Structures are given as structure tokens and as C-alpha cells.
């Protein structure tokens, strides 16, 4: 049963990822991106990382794709995608793709087996406890730093999307003009 699910989800991920790359309309691409992210969350469930599966759906399929769709619709660059890709980029992309696929096939030509998991299936509660314990003991400093990084990113995004210049002096000037 799990094997069949693995093959279904993998096929779904790869097909929708290809459609992200190939679709002319970026909005369709973003929709296929949701399918790919949810498929990866399903593979996380098969790998018994339930917490990460939930985070994947929340952060990627939720926040990131919504952000993409928001920007695509804000910029409204539809129609300009009718230009065909250049021959050079088609050749370069196909070559890189073929090389990487060849590398993957050469690595795993022996079969799809590989090492078997040594750990028996655990309960979700035990896994979450282990995850939280590691996160808040061994990786506490990294956890704090990631919070600071999110704050810095937020401030940076607000600064960039306001136009890149501080608005305070202008408003002061405007106030002076009004006063005069």
C-alpha cells in the first residue's frame, strides 16, 4: 500500500513540477506549485516526519504560494510570455537536465532499494517529542537566530517595498511647505 502511494505521489510531484516549468501562464505555474508542495508533504508523511509535513503545507502551500500569486497578479505581466525561449537557453537547459538525470540514473542503476530503515515505526507523539527536544536544546542558538533573521527580513521587505528611500525627510519637508 505504501509503495503504491509512494509511486503515485512521486509521479504527481514530478509531473506538476514539470508543468510549473513549462506552463506559459505564471498563475497556472503557481497552481501546479501547490500540487508539487502538497505531494512533497505526502512524501514527508511516508517518511514519518509528520510535523514537517504540516509545516510544509502551512508555509509552502499556504504562505509562499499565496505570496507568489499575489505578486503575479499585482505585476500583471500576462500576455508578454508569448515570446518563445531562446535556442541557446533551450539547449543549455536540456543539456543540464540530461546531465543531471544521467547522474541520478548512474547513481541508482543498481535499483531503487538501498538501505532499509533500522528504526521501527514510531508514534507521532514520540517523534514530535524528539523533534522538540532537539530543537530547544541542541539547536537553541540557531532557533533564536532564525527568529532574528525573520525580523530582519520583515524590516527589509517593508523598506524595499516602500521604495527604498526613507520617507521621513520628505514628510518633514512637506510639513515645512505647508507651514510656509
Amino acid at each position: 500500500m505504501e509503495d503504491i502511494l509512494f509511486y503515485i505521489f512521486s509521479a504527481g510531484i514530478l509531473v506538476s513540477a514539470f508543468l510549473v516549468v513549462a506552463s506559459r501562464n505564471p498563475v497556472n505555474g503557481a497552481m501546479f506549485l501547490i500540487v508539487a508542495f502538497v505531494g512533497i508533504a505526502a512524501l514527508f508523511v511516508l517518511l514519518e516526519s509528520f510535523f514537517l509535513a504540516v509545516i510544509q503545507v502551512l508555509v509552502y502551500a499556504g504562505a509562499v504560494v499565496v505570496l507568489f500569486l499575489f505578486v503575479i497578479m499585482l505585476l500583471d505581466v500576462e500576455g508578454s510570455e508569448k515570446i518563445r525561449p531562446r535556442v541557446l537557453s533551450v539547449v543549455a537547459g536540456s543539456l543540464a537536465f540530461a546531465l543531471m538525470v544521467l547522474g541520478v540514473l548512474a547513481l541508482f542503476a543498481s535499483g531503487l532499494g538501498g538501505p532499509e530503515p533500522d528504526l521501527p515505526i514510531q508514534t507521532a507523539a514520540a517523534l514530535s517529542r524528539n523533534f522538540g527536544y532537539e530543537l530547544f536544546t541542541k539547536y537553541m542558538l540557531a532557533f533564536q537566530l532564525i527568529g532574528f533573521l525573520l525580523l530582519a527580513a520583515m524590516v527589509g521587505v517593508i523598506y524595499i517595498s516602500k521604495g527604498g528611500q526613507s520617507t521621513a525627510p520628505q514628510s518633514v519637508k512637506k510639513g515645512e511647505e505647508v507651514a510656509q
Partner: protein
Amino acid sequence: MTVGLNAFLTVSGLLFAIGVFGVLLRRNTLVIYMSLELMLNAVNLALVSFSRYNATPEHTMMDGPVFVFFIITVAAAEVAVGLAIIVALYRKGGTVFVSELNTLNN
């Protein structure tokens, strides 16, 4: 589960290859960015499967999932900053196509 580690790594490698293909082929900055996200996800999948298949009852190998957690957080911040930069570029140049973003060339 009879699916081995190699199956997961193959999916991860193919997903990464598709992402590289998209980055090289497409000219729309937004689609290039989506392909980058696909590549990040491929790496996450590889990390989680490595940690799952190397876990033992003595050491449950939670480092891989914790690492993926951090990668997801950094990717979320990166997407926010990157899209803000794309919006700023569009405001300045009126285009999001990499072939037309040639200000440094002239």
C-alpha cells in the same frame, strides 16, 4: 515499507533537475523563482529521507528534520525579500523578464 532510500533520492534528484531546467530555460523572473523553490524542496526531501533511513533506536536522527525546519524558515524569509526585490525591479524598469533587465550592460 519496501520502498528504499534510493527511490526517495531518485525523486529528489529528478525534482532538482527539473528546477535547474526551469532556471535555465525560463525568462520570467517569477517562474525562475518558483523553480528555485522546487530545488529547495528537492534538497529538503533528500535530507529527510537520509535521516529516516539512518535512524536507529539509540539515535533517532532528528538532526535532518530540524535542519529542514530551519531551511523552510530561511526559504520563507528569502521568498519575501526576493519578491519585494522583483516588485521594486518592476517599478523601476517596467519588466520582470531577465532578457530585458540589462541596465548593467549599457
